[in-house]
């Protein structure tokens, strides 16, 4: 029997389909693996920790896929919410949590040095250009774009961390992204 093609399904549909078709979660994984690896690599500069955290986040996402409610926000935001939590927990404890993987019986991965290099290349590739461009922005815009786009914080959280209003954060993000777009067009 031919496998259904899930590549056209949106994220919420993939999570809803996961309970009945494990391959749907595979497509969800493919969509976000590089982004999560990049997110963790930027934070840790360690491919092995980034891989470990990525594995834990996806295991946690798989475990609670059936409970995801699209009306509560995007699947991407939900996934990165788990990621932020895991990262904060890791710095606090000095270790990467593995409880979700154990609950889901996801085996520890044995990553060779070549595999770690591949992870690093993939994670850094997505980050490198964006980070270089980001550093060319004024400080206030850089912090706002970094928080909103790279760290997936919502405007309310950013407003608290940057000690300004949500509307000002939106304005800085908007201006920063506009400037980045212009510079990207200049370079291509």
């Amino acid at each position: 029997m031919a496998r259904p093609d899930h590549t056209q399904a949106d994220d919420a549909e993939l999570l809803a389909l996961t309970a009945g078709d494990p391959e749907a979660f595979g497509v969800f994984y493919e969509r976000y693996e590089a982004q999560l690896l990049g997110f963790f690599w930027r934070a840790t500069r360690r491919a092995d920790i980034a891989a470990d955290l990525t594995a834990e986040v996806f295991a946690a996402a798989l475990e609670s896929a059936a409970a995801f409610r699209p009306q509560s926000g995007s699947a991407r935001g939900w996934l990165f919410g788990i990621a932020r939590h895991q990262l904060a927990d890791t710095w606090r404890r000095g270790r990467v949590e593995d409880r979700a993987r154990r609950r889901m019986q996801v085996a520890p991965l044995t990553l060779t040095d070549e595999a770690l290099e591949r992870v690093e290349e993939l994670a850094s590739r997505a980050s490198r250009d964006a980070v270089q461009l980001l550093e060319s922005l004024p400080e206030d815009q850089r912090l706002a774009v970094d928080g909103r786009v790279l760290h997936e914080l919502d405007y309310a959280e950013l407003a608290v961390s940057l000690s300004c209003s949500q509307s000002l954060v939106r304005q800085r993000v908007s201006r920063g992204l506009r400037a980045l777009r212009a510079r990207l067009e200049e370079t291509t």
Partner: protein
Amino acid sequence: MTDLGIPELHRALIDAARRQHEAAAVRTSDPRDAPARDSRRRSWLGGSRWRALPVMMLVLVLVGAAVALASGLISFGAPAASVPVFANPRAGLGRIAPGTVRLLPLSVPDPHGGLPWGMRVLSTTRGVGCLQVGRLLDGRLVALGQDGAFGNDGRAHELPLSTNVERLNCSFVDARGRIFDNVTIKSQAASAAPGVHCEPPGAYAASHRAAFSTCPLADERNLYYGMLGPDATSLTYSLDGNSHTVATVGGDGAYLIVTPGTTHRYSGAAGSHERAGLYTHDEVPVYGPITAIHYRGGATCHLVTAERWIYGPRACDPALPEPYGYVRAAVPTPAELAAPIHAKLIRRGAGRWQVRVRFASPVAISSLRGEYQLQWRDPATGHEAYASMSFGERASSRYSGMIPQGANIKAGQILTATIGASPLGAPLAPGATSGSVTLRYADGPLIGAEEDTVSIPVGSFTIRVP
């Protein structure tokens, strides 16, 4: 498939999703499955024969001549810094309960020599038990001035009872006040200094490097310790290809194993097996050399060596309820908890509304296990929002760290929370705001473990914002 960084993880997750799907299908198709499993478990327990074990008293060397000799060579410096984790008897972890601090009769030689290692336990007024490990000198638990700790002064610094929570390893005591916990720490600095992580140079990004000390592999240790409960009489572990069976200590099933460090890089579960599990804290020993736990009456938990990350009954082959002998806490019933939830609209300036939620706690909460949670739906965004209703006293105003902030609640105590005001969200938009209050209650040993936490409804409310 796109160019994946970790194709093995992709496959492992799909396999996990498939197992989840198949398990759900089995549960749906065979309602007799659970009783059948229980029956098999009882049969196995009843049928197993008790076998005497060749117990080697490897770790049971009381503090003696070796320590006396060592104490003549190492002088005491100032005690290690105390952290106010046990500041409030009615909040957070609680205060150390009188008479519960015990230095266990364990003195484990260090693989590279020097002071032996020991373990201390304590319990608190809020149902928590903690384990603390350090070097032993003159019957005191100490850390050494080396590996970057205490300015490398070479002296012994007594460890206070109140130290970093990460180094205390706390869990919920069972209904009979007993501690069940298992800890694996790899890459522990030989100094035993609290909060000092021992990592090779360059292991961390510059922005985080300050949090870690650097030291050579020879100054790293792997520690495996815990309390297996009063029924555990011995355990078997494998080291350098040899199998060792050692008796547990005291009436708590305590054990402590110290081996040379093996961790060259921080890679947790993504690394090779020997690197895996830099730090774990669980119901059964995981990511370590322990292969079996032997219980009074003949039961043995053979830990599933190929799948050490599994916990609970499936950690043992054949299955055995773990932690064995743990008496779970009684959880309040929905009938005991049902209470009316009052919601009142409050106007805060033009067009700005808040909702004050109020109810009387139907039961007393006197341990860290219980916490009320308020959940509501914002009519503007449709998003569900949650907030822990932590009331009254906080554990400590000076140190938040990892200490849960809940506090004791008396039966009948009035609890309130305001939605639409900081910290519980922005002003409410017009429409119906509905919500509910539940009690989240942990009945297992692990603090913060979602799988051991049940949610019991208290009541709900709906209110229309103009």
